[in-house]
């Protein structure tokens, strides 16, 4: 992450980085480590714990010509600055009749690492529901970098969801690592194009973020049990690759959508509706596996609620055998 940010800060002097603990500490997950030392306190700085103020500052700075990359430490803190996102960041381009651009990248850590209901959410659909925000939810190291580069260069506000497990897991332990080679330029990867990461003939699993990694592991186990499961990574929720989804669904007898954001009115429903609207009776039999309660604190309860490799495997098996 820091490498991608460094590259873009060198490339474009209007890129600035601010948020809580991003400068001296380098971010609670290290994503901005070393940037303050290299670029100085004018372009990389810590803010007070005042999410409304610094989110609004990002909006104004972007409208004034900067490209702020602002960090909301955990997505759960959205509640304290939601107006700036809902009513300002997302809408000012439209309300200005296209005269104003708001190129803010809102980086935020999502997902469950054992901190209960106020520190474990994803909230991807909350952002994706609002017209005017792009939403990236990368699943791999290569996409974390490549989609971030694209987000910084985009003239629109981009909500960039970084899954905590993806930031914390050591690369060799990931099921899928597509990091671009160390020294070369990190290339931007396009928004709105899903990718198929695993072929499978019995069922297709659609996911985004870290659950793509889990789905790949689940698919390996399913294969051992005689079920051939493909895995599709959505990569960005806005824009959503609707044509790609329909293409992927056309040949799949079963399709399972896996999401670690909330179930109701969420991504899983959106994906299923998109496919059903296009394919009608030709649509595969579809199911979904998502979170439908606040995330509990105790490990044993958390494991019961949050989608995981075994629970994805179980959901896929149940769907195919239905």
């Amino acid at each position: 992450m820091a490498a991608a940010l460094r590259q873009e800060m060198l490339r474009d002097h209007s890129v600035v980085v601010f948020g809580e603990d991003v400068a001296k500490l380098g971010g609670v997950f290290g994503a901005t480590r070393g940037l303050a030392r290299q670029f100085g306190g004018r372009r990389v700085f810590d803010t007070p714990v005042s999410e409304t103020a610094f989110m609004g500052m990002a909006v104004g700075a972007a409208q004034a010509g900067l490209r702020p990359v602002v960090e909301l430490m955990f997505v759960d803190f959205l509640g304290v600055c939601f107006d700036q996102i809902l009513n300002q960041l997302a809408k000012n381009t439209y309300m200005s009749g296209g005269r104003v651009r708001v190129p803010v990248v809102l980086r935020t850590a999502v997902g469950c690492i054992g901190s209960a209901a106020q520190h474990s959410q994803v909230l991807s659909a909350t952002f994706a529901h609002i017209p005017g925000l792009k939403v990236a939810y990368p699943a791999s190291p290569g996409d974390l970098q490549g989609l971030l580069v694209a987000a910084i260069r985009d003239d629109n506000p981009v909500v960039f969801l970084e899954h905590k497990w993806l930031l914390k897991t050591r690369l060799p332990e990931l099921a899928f690592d597509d990091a671009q080679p160390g020294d070369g330029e990190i290339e931007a990867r396009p928004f709105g194009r899903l990718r198929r990461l695993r072929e499978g003939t019995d069922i297709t699993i659609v996911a985004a973020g870290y659950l793509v990694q889990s789905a790949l592991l689940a698919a390996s186990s399913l294969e051992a049990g005689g079920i051939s499961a493909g895995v599709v990574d959505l990569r960005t929720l806005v824009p959503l690759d609707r044509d790609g989804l329909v293409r992927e669904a056309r040949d799949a007898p079963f399709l399972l959508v896996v999401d670690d954001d909330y179930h109701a009115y969420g991504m899983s429903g959106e994906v299923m509706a998109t496919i059903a609207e296009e394919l009608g009776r030709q649509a595969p039999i579809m199911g979904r596996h998502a979170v439908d309660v606040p995330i509990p604190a105790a490990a044993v309860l958390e494991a019961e609620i949050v989608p995981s490799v075994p629970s994805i495997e179980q959901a896929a098996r149940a769907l195919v055998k239905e």
Partner: protein
Amino acid sequence: MNVEDLLEVYEVMWRLRRFEEEVGQAVASGEIHGEMHLGIGHEAVGAVLGRHRRAGDAVVSTHRAHLHALAAGVDPVQLAAELLERDGLNHGKGGHMHLFDPEARFMCTGIVGAGVPIASGYALKQSLQADGALTVSVVGDGTMNQGAVFETMNLAAVRGLPMVFLCEDNHYSISVRREESTAGELRRRGEPFGIPGFACDGTDVDRVDEALGQAFEITRTESRPSLVVASVYRFRGHYEGDLDLYRPAGEKKEAARTRDPVLKLRERLLDSGTPEARLQEGENRAAETVAEWFAAARQRPLPGKKTAREHVFADVKA
């Protein structure tokens, strides 16, 4: 300000007054169908703000923003066309509470308090350029109770942002009197953050000029925030159509005698020996100018229906 300056300000204030009256009539006639907040009574602040604003300065205003837009140099015909729901400043997408003019560095927002953090972003850009430009964040007395204001005062102070908080204190948050909603003195709200505050009679152009002059000087030369609280009277309801029943009997009548900034300057100029004919000239010119603006604005077409779906996203650079 000398007499010639005051005569100029007088004419500007008349333009502002006539502008708002035209808008009010367009609401009454149904030409404008949305909510509308007028700044009649706030003209001294708008007119004097225009004198202190320099090229490069930004102004971020509120739901009661027309006077600040004009002060910031927004094209009046484009502005009027937008208010009249035509293809105007923002092609009919923003309307009167959401005006954006990137060339004039002006914007406003309809959410009370939301403009304040955004203003700090403009000031951040100016502080990086260090060219003496500043951002004026206009708020009302009601806004002063929003957490965003306190957060931004702290942030602006700690980062040395060139930002002037300009509070138009009209004593009412919609219907609630300031005494019932607001503790302490507004001028001192910045004190804990080391932000100097200047209070003035916002219906007296000289007092507004002094207060803004002091605040702008500190913010421009020292690159740090300042606060001005200008006490004004809102002669219309919170919105057009507000029955305004919450005011004590006789308050408005009394204010019309003592708190109307246009009338006050008129009387003062007459007292100091300015011939009434000269004032009349300015008044007539202002009325004609505003009539021309609105006539030109009414020539603008309605927005094309198909444009309703455009500009959800900016065009992505090639």
